[in-house]
């Protein structure tokens, strides 16, 4: 596991707020040279700590007005392998996130749709027909926020 010093943590904080910062800009803010900042960012990327970028997008403006989280329970865990379910669910373009979980459900899915009618179509035609799918619970996403976490 990678050890972080205060500068590494400051870099993670800065990039959590603005992932488009260049090494030069990061360096200026933190009192590092451009190559020095670049080397640290590179090290965090190589260690897998910096796992890429995400971008805020106005999904409604792009015609995707509804985001729904589904809790899915498999009906036939013994017979149908988890791999079959995962392979099939991965192929659905409206499914953004697939998480294997332990608890009330077996999987959590994040699904985008144009509207509630479109969501119903995805649910009936794509989700309910997945191999092994059992009970499904849907919750419509209203707001979401990402927090800085323990480096904040």
């Amino acid at each position, binding site marked *: 596991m990678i050890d972080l010093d205060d500068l590494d943590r400051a870099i993670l904080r800065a990039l959590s707020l603005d992932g488009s910062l260049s090494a030069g800009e990061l360096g200026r803010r933190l009192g590092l040279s451009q190559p020095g900042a670049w080397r640290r960012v590179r090290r965090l990327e190589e260690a897998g700590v910096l796992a890429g970028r995400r971008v805020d997008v106005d999904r409604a403006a792009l015609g995707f007005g509804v985001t729904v989280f589904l809790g899915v329970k498999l009906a036939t865990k013994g017979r149908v392998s988890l791999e079959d379910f995962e392979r099939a669910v991965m192929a659905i373009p409206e499914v953004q996130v697939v998480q294997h979980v332990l608890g*009330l459900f077996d999987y959590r899915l994040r699904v985008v749709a144009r509207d509630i009618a479109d969501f119903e179509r995805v649910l009936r035609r794509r989700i309910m027909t997945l191999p092994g799918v059992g009970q499904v619970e849907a919750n419509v996403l209203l707001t979401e926020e990402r927090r800085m976490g323990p480096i904040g």
Partner: protein
Amino acid sequence: MQFDDADRRILRHYLADPGLARAELAERAGVTQATLWRRLERLTEGGVVGRMQAVIDWRKLGYAVEVSLRFTLDKTNPRAFDEFIAAAREVPEVVGIETFLGRVDVRLNVIARDMAQYQEVYRRRILALPHIAEVEALMLIATIKDGEGLPL
């Protein structure tokens, strides 16, 4: 705001991998770099594309436990949502807050170094949050897919 096929191609590739170098993104979307620049600027000014953030892989920093906590709040108190969320923001181990329409009111994404620390956070910080009526936990086993691409 209106979108044409070039906008949709750019957004499809950009949202699938926002960390992509601009030259590579232009090539995948089949536009020139000058066009890409102009289109992204227009989408940003129109508020469709917002800020970019770094994605931190907490497991790589030694946070081996990730739990999705689903809350039902006591809605007889009109301030329940606001007060619960304000208090949840004060817990450093909370890395995500989502609100829903459905059986679940709020979901918190909580990370911890191990089960002992999780138990500590859960007992001392989470159960101390105001207006909790019910709480359920889903423990993350594996993230199979995690993206924010849209089927444009």
